[in-house]
């Protein structure tokens, strides 16, 4: 891991409750970092298990979870996007599994991915307006009043 921490500009290291460490990177380095983790002999990540987003109101966090069967370990990479203009680079060219993940995040959080062709709503219908998983998304349907 030392080579990796030197090579990239790691803003923060957060220890999570399950014992893993989350490396926070600036958004323009994420794609290179994932590419490096996939191709470096040190880590040689096999899979991009998932990409998830968390809405922190002013910022939107993207978390990439990679797995390396060589080290039998997970690595978590995170980056913060400005909520006013959430755009970042797509990682489809590195891992194809990112295609659905990025579509889902675009659909539910409104994050744009540069270099992702054929971006579309994945889970919500095409005519839906808004991004339901954002914290300020409220549902005006009166049947859901109890949902608060």
């Amino acid at each position: 891991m030392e080579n990796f921490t030197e090579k990239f500009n790691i803003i923060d290291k957060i220890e999570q409750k399950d014992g893993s460490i989350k490396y926070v990177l600036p958004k323009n380095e994420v794609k290179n970092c994932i590419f490096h983790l996939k191709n470096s002999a040190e880590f040689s990540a096999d899979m991009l298990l998932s990409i998830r987003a968390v809405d922190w109101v002013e910022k939107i966090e993207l978390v990439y979870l990679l797995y390396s069967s060589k080290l039998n370990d997970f690595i978590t990479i995170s980056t913060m996007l400005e909520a006013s203009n959430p755009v970042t680079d797509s990682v489809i060219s590195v891992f194809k599994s990112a295609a659905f993940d990025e579509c889902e995040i675009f659909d539910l959080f409104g994050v744009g991915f540069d270099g992702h062709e054929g971006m579309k709503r994945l889970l919500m219908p095409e005519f839906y307006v808004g991004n339901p998983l954002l914290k300020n998304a409220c549902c005006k349907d009166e049947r859901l009043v109890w949902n608060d």
Partner: protein
Amino acid sequence: MLAAKTKDWFGMTKELLKINIGLQHPSTHGVLRLITELDGETVKSVEPVIGYLHRGMEKLAESRTYLQYLPMVDRVDYLSGFFCQEAFCSAVEKLSDIEVPERAKYIRCLLMELNRITSHLLWLGTYLMDLGASSPIFYAFREREMILRIFENLTGQRMMYNFHVFGGVKRDLSAEILDEIEKFLEIFPEKIKEYESILTDNPIFLSRTKGLGILTKNVALNYSITGANLRASGLNTDFRKQKPYLVYDKLDFEVSTETAGDCYARYLVRIAEMKQSQRIAAQCVDYLKNNSGEFKNSSVNPLAIKPQGEASSFVEAPRGLMICTVTADGSEKPYRVKWRTGSFYSVQILPELLKDRNFADIMAIFGSLDVILSEVDR
């Protein structure tokens, strides 16, 4: 609907035919729509359209307390409820440092392995039905019913169990239920032999599945395929062995792999997995019969869970790796819950696997991936 025009050898205009499959189709096990483009009988492109079963499981979590959300998580994958419960419970347990007693861990393991058998049996029956064989489903459901009876006796439910609690399970397994499970586990190897004698060397089954839908190692990894589909392509990634949770490190079992990567290999892996599940379950029953202990951590007050931080749990579910990540902000409700499920990625690989295959092979290949749409759409 007519799509792109091409000219054939005689200079005649040839057109690709667009055909819509689904969203209500008996072979999709849920609601999946496939938009296919055909050249004669050959599939030129497939576009899976998902989202018809989207219930907003992740959004619902944000407006409910941890305890209120617990009964809902079974519905993430309705065929393997215990796995979803385990994924959510263990994430919350990691977050709030809740200890799970040894006996509860064995009970969870036992129930999960029985659940894996029911899930694989349902796959076996319906997959063979997709291929046109109507009898295997009766054999498979005969044994599935026996396990569901046991689950019903234990939890009161056949599919949506809601049996886990934070720090253990709701009830202890009584001696009668353990006897029932033991009786089932004794006869089950015989029954697997029955399925195998119908299928494994069946020439019709072989011609429909062997060499079909070949998923190579690199493509599988690139698309993040996990579970039995990955193991059929020659990798032995099983998170029960790689990152043991509960008591899997104390149990004796093997990871079943195949190298061919075709539909037949995926069938063989699932059959072998059922045998291993039977083995694990027998060891759990043995432990539970000879040891006593607490079945839940009684110091936990489920209403007072207010954790802070982020934790993920990794569970090897029947359809691949299931990860539940809970982000908590110290209030009584989760700030964000993210489900990562195996089927979501298996659907994504369909265009790759179906390209230039015969139209009739669509369901043979799709069925072999064992996709459950509730898990895809969440």
